[in-house]
């Protein structure tokens, strides 16, 4: 098709695709899926961190965490808006999430068991997210790329805050340091899984690459995460829970152990420690809020009617 060729040429030339431009249906669908998953992840991601806001150990740390969770709700908003430019409403996307038909990042199905987990999420989970997302700031779809620029700026701030939290624990009492190590033990592998299966096993990668939605391979991004994180862990004095981890002089990268993909696919299937709770919490919140949304709509209708009557 001519349209399709023009479309691909624009992408190849690095020109952004905008909402009103023609685009292949597959491109639209892939983007809607990816952006909405990302939006859902921000929303569901509020829950594991929100779990420690009321228990933050200092008022300053509490303020940082509250601000972070607020940022996440904001990211959710931009991303739903970006998805809406593709012709699907936020309500429809949320309905998919609540029906269990849409995914969100599996990492949020793990529980936050101690205060150190808040640090580990900032350091490792936001760390992986940033590595995943920085390339997306240059992706071919304009609204998504622009949303990502804003998101990445805030995420890197969150990552530093998470690291700082762990640094305080690692400089603290032996109990606090043990808490930090325990958090690293539990979050390390799930954070590596965030990049998705090895490219060999990853569907749709080629097409997404051609469309400028996927710019690096999952494995390449994962390697970057490992390389970046190992020295940070060393600085904290923490041990990464991987006996196979070691520097490979030849590759110029760290080698690391095999990932337990059974666990990954199991959690995606719904069998993570918190899948049921997370979804139930969101659905409950939505149902409890029905009267609220209905009330605001009723008021808006009344106002509109009054405006019409006055005109």
């Amino acid at each position, binding site marked *: 098709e001519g349209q399709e060729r023009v479309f691909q040429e624009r992408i190849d030339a690095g020109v952004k695709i905008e909402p009103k431009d023609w685009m292949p249906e597959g491109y639209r669908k892939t983007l809607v899926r990816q952006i909405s998953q990302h939006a859902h992840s921000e929303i569901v991601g509020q829950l594991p961190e929100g779990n420690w806001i009321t228990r933050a150990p200092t008022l300053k740390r509490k303020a940082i965490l509250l601000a972070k969770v607020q940022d996440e*709700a904001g990211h959710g908003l931009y991303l739903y808006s970006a998805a809406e430019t593709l012709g699907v409403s936020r309500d429809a996307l949320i309905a998919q999430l609540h029906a269990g038909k849409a995914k969100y990042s599996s990492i949020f199905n793990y529980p936050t068991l101690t205060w150190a987990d808040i640090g580990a999420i900032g350091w490792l989970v936001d760390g992986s997210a940033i590595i995943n997302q920085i390339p997306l700031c240059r992706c071919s779809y304009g609204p998504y790329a622009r949303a990502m620029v804003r998101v990445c700026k805030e995420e890197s701030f969150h990552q530093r805050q998470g690291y700082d939290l762990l640094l*305080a624990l690692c400089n603290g009492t032996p*109990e*606090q340091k043990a808490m930090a190590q325990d958090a690293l033990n539990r979050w390390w592998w799930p954070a590596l899984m965030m990049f998705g299966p090895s490219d060999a096993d990853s569907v749709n990668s080629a097409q997404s690459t051609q469309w400028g939605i996927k710019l690096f391979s999952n494995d390449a991004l994962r390697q970057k995460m490992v390389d970046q994180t190992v020295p940070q862990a060393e600085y904290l004095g923490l041990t990464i829970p991987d006996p196979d981890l070691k520097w490979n002089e030849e590759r110029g990268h760290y080698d690391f152990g095999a990932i337990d993909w059974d666990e990954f696919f199991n959690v995606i299937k719904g069998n993570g420690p918190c899948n049921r709770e997370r979804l139930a919490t969101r659905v409950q919140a939505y149902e409890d*809020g029905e009267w609220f949304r209905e009330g605001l709509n009723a008021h808006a209708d009344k106002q509109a009617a009054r405006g019409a009557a006055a005109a």
Partner: protein
Amino acid sequence: MSQTDAAQKLAYALRFGDTALVLSHRLSEWCGKGPALEEDMALANTALDLLGQARHWLTYAGELEAQGRDEDALAYHRNDREFFNLLLVEQPNGNYADSMVRQFYFDAWHALALRRLLASNDAQMAAIAEKALKEVSYHLRRSSDLVVRLGDGSERSHAMMQAAADALWAYTGEMFMGDAVDADAAAQGYGFDPASLRAPWLDYVREVFDEATLTLPNPDAWMHQGGKQGRHGEALSYLLGEMQVLQRSYPGAQW
């Protein structure tokens, strides 16, 4: 300043700080559970503003006390009998109508109170109030707007808002009841007589309720009191137990 004066002023600062802290806590309990994404953001934002205000008040209270206690020592190492927040703000969240009406009743008072503190002869109190007032003016606009939209919304939203307005009413009177601490604040010129806020508060609430088609509860109804003097309901000690759990469990640790 005599010792009694210092103690009164300290209590006065703690009332503002504890009230902001406890309400911030209650709002943060909504995290990720609001009725709409915009509400999640607004709740977190309000919680954050109040937390910031609490930190200013508690830091200043620590200076007034001059025993070396900082904001964290005061927030995390006092029990509920030593907290002086208003009873209104410690009330459990209930449904979202309850939380919004609580916020509205409080914001309407808070804005008036802070405006009076602008004229405090204590420069630090005036400065805290000035910064806070900007935030609180926005809180009040928002909560007033929601009260109107939900009161004059659907039949169901109207009924829920009215029920919340009635249920929380008995906790509003305390905002206008003075005691020795208030009398000292007014006499020394760093604070004000809380009774003087009652008429403007009632006027404002009545105006908003009228627009919201809500019925104002009886202003002369019996009212709870005690929060400002450290006599709270049963819910507060649970709230503080949760808030303080790490500081209490790991004494002396730095975070």
